[in-house]
Each structure stands twice: as C-alpha cells, then as structure tokens.
C-alpha cells in the first residue's frame, strides 16, 4: 500500500534575488510548516525550509543527504508551484477525542446497523462545534454534528465511522 502523504503547503513566487521564496502554508499555525522536518514534492525530491520573514522562506533541496539552498532568483523560480507534502505517519498522535481532518475526510459512514450512509467529504467548524458533511449517492448531503452521541465510533484504520443520525425537526418561519 503506498504511503499516504498530506499536502502542507505550496511554494509561491520568488522573493528578492537571493533565492528566497514566498511559501503558502496550509497548516493550522502557518509557522509550523517547518516543524515536521523534511518535506517532499510530487517528484520525490526532498526539501527543508527555514523562515526568513512572514511567509518568506529559504528552501533547500536535500541532495546526497545535504541541504542545498536555492542560490539565486532563477533557482527560486524553478520551485514555483512546488507542492510540499509530508508522510501521514510523521504527524504527532492527536489528543483524546481529537482527529486530524485528513483522517476524517474520505471515511465511509455507516449507520448503527452497518448499512452504508455515504462518504465524509468535509469537516466544518465555524465556532459552534465541528460537523461532518456526508455525501450520499441518491440524496442531498447529510450534515451531522461531530459529537459522541451522533458519531459514537471513529475508526480511521478501518476507514469507517458510525453515524447515528439525529432526528430533524423543521421550524418554519410562519410557525407561531
């Protein structure tokens, strides 16, 4: 089974003439992009990053075990749009009751009887608790709160989670 990789950022345009690049970080804390060690790209090359300013980094390709920084602007231009990944195994284990979004998205949702409900396609959190969006084949997506009552079992290794969909009550605006 191929190793799972997670996209953490992408290299942007060069900054200045000394080989620095703008880097867009997708991590929760943008500065933590450098916290996971060497990053790899789509071609299998490995890089290390060192921040030199807000959103600006010195990128060094690891060649024969040694980091070789981009020497000038031309070298930095060749890195534009390079997508930076890490292997999933290198993320630290989450706390109890916490799950990486990368682990949740793509899980198969089943109901309490084991019947398939759909696939988790997104995790939303707008300040009122996380919720899962489950795409279904023949009906509209199902949105459920990510609580122990509604999602009692999450098994990323097996690739599925159990959902007990709550009852839904419509309260139309005209009701008095």
């Amino acid at each position, binding site marked *: 089974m191929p190793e799972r990789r*997670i*996209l*953490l*950022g992408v290299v942007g345009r060069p900054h200045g003439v000394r080989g620095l690049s703008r880097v867009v*970080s*997708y*991590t*929760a804390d943008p500065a*933590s992009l450098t916290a*996971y060690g060497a990053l790899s790209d789509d071609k299998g090359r490995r890089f290390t990053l060192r921040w030199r300013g807000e959103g600006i980094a010195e990128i060094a390709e690891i060649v024969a075990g040694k980091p070789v920084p981009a020497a000038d602007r031309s070298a930095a231009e060749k890195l534009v749009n390079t997508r930076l990944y890490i292997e999933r195994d290198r*993320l630290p284990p*989450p706390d109890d*009751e*916490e*799950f*990486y*979004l*990368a682990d*949740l*998205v793509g899980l198969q949702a089943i109901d309490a009887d084991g019947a398939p409900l759909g696939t988790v396609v*997104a*995790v*939303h*959190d*707008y*300040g*009122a*608790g*996380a*919720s899962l969006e489950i795409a279904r084949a023949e009906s*509209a*997506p199902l*949105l*459920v*709160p*990510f*609580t*122990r*009552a*509604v*999602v009692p079992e*999450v098994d990323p290794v097996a690739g599925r989670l159990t959902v*007990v969909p*709550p*009852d*839904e*009550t*419509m*309260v*139309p*605006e005209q*009701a*008095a």
Partner: protein
Amino acid sequence: MARSVWKGPFVDGYLLNKADASRASGRNEIIKIWSRRSTILPQFVGLTFGVYNGHKFLPVQVTENMVGHKFGEFSPTRTFTGHAADKKARRG
C-alpha cells in the same frame, strides 16, 4: 446604532416554544431553523440547531459562550473549506 436595552434581546417567539419542547422531550435532535436573526438565549444552551445559510442547514451546538450572539454568526453564507493539512477536529 445599538438596539435599545429596554426592548430586550430579539428572538423569534416560535424558537422559544420549540426549544422548550425539545428540551422536555430529551431527544437527540437537530432543530432546523431559518431564523438567523434571533439572539441565542441561555435556555438554548445544550441544544443543537441546524441554521440555514441559504444552501444547507449547518449544525450549531449552542454553548454558554454563544449566548448573546445571533444564530447567523455561526452559519456563514460564504465558506472556504481550505486544505486539511495538520488541522484537527474535536469530537464534542
């Protein structure tokens, strides 16, 4: 301009009735509402509402910190999911 204090917080009346009924029933349910303008009151704490954002009903689990805000604040109408990267979700 701020709303006059003497009026009290605005809330659609039918929400109060529905919240009372839901709390009394003790069922695990989502109360789907369109009323984004209603203020979140202390009696809503612990309930889960599905607040319409023009597209879908986003689950809103009401906690004490949300009292005084409007339901619509927690159900944005324009969303960008972004990349998962190392972000985490906590199960409530």
